[in-house]
């Protein structure tokens, strides 16, 4: 079997989903950890320095390319699987099976994913574009902050500004909920797809998955909330 054949079967496509999914989960850990620096209560100094480190070091920049690649693959493969899977039942049931045998969110990964995609577009436009491309092609530049005589992007200030708008905060919190449900299924499903079948590990991984899908989105959700209520 060629590599192409291996990844083009229904199982192979799922392996792609699983590997990219796990990569994105790892990214979430880094992202959440970094952003948690806003709670250092130093008017964003730690956070801005950490963000500047990530922005100026070549390792994260290279990984960032991989991240976008993985993300695009995850999105593309996800939609193509969803379309293919939907086409396998030309005549639908009069009475749907519904929640009698599975969780609604496990059947709604594409919808949850679409919500996340919409969120991501906005999120990237709000923060990533000005931070990386600010000044080019007429894109607005981020404000700067000066620490020890060095000038770096003041992302903290940018967040503060954006999250003064309650509508944006609500949208972010909803997106975090989508993320939570997407992860609640995706986390353990990814490991199942990679072949974890021993009871010992699958129980461990599914507990870890549920914990992760609550904890990480909660951290993200608390960020705009903290700004909105001026807690940082």
């Amino acid at each position, binding site marked *: *079997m060629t590599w192409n054949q*291996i990844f083009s*079967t*229904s*199982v*192979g*496509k*799922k*392996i792609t989903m699983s590997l990219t999914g796990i990569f994105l989960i790892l990214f979430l850990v880094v992202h959440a950890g970094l952003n948690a620096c806003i709670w250092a209560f130093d008017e964003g100094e730690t956070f801005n320095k950490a963000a500047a480190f990530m922005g100026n070091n070549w390792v994260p920049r290279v990984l960032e390319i991989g991240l976008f690649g993985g993300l695009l693959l995850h999105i593309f493969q996800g939609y193509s*699987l969803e379309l*293919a*899977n*939907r*086409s*396998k*039942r*030309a*005549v*639908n*049931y*009069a*009475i*749907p*099976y*519904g929640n*009698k*045998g*599975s*969780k609604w969110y*496990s*059947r709604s*990964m594409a919808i949850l994913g679409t919500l996340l995609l919409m969120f991501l577009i906005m999120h990237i436009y709000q923060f990533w574009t000005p931070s990386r491309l600010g000044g080019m092609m007429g894109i607005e530049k981020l404000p700067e902050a000066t620490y020890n005589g060095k000038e770096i992007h003041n992302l903290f200030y940018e967040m503060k500004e954006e999250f003064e708008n309650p509508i944006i905060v609500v949208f972010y919190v909803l997106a975090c909920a989508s993320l939570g449900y997407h992860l609640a*299924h995706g986390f*353990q*499903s990814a490991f*199942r*797809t*990679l*072949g*974890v*079948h021993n*009871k010992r590990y*699958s129980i461990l991984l599914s507990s870890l998955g549920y914990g992760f899908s609550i904890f990480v989105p909660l951290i993200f959700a608390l960020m705009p909330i903290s700004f909105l209520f001026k807690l940082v």
Partner: protein
Amino acid sequence: MAHKSMNLTLKVWRQKNAKTTGQFESYQVKNISEEMSFLEMFDVLNEQLVQENKEPIAFDHDCREGICGMCSMYIDGKPHGPWQANTTCQLHMRAFKDGDTITVEPWRANAFPVLKDLVVDRTSFDRIIQAGGYVSVNTGNAVDGNSLPINKNAADDSFAAAMCIGCGACVAACKNSSAMLFLSAKVSHLALLPQGDPERSTRVMNMVAQMDKEGFGACTNTGACEATCPKEISLSNIARLNQEYLLSSLTASN
């Protein structure tokens, strides 16, 4: 002992053959004993239809003891009806109450085309087995049965997977019409035994390819199949299949 009896309305899918489109028809049945099996209730209905000179409802059934895997009704939104770990033929009317309306549909999946009424064509399952669901051992080649001790847990797990009756409820339940539970039950049954070892790589690869070819969807681990399976085949078999697939891909020599 006087058994409770009930009157019911049945909404049943009627379809003349594979080429026509079908529709639901409603029927009334009276004095159904709660001791009856669901299919015996259908027998009563069919007898009624014969008396009215109408065509009885075609449905697949044979052993009526939950093992042949032939019966296949999607009852009130669930393959094999409301009971857990059960086949249609073992469902008894105790599960319903007087005045209920019961909707009965055939399995729905492109890979299981309807042949007539509630009868579907499941030969795609046979072709999946043909793709590698066996041990290549000709009659007469065997060594003594006790020459190869097998870990009891492995043998028990293998048996638990081999209990699959091939009814197709997993496909009927899956939102993707995936046959992965069926497939993985066979892959696990043989992968867990030393006898299945020599062909393990080609088996999983060929069977997955055949499943795709037959028009079944991909597995998204929702677990609806496991919750529906009359023999409670575990979802972990699917994970085992994935492992077999991954290892076979990675260790392929070419």
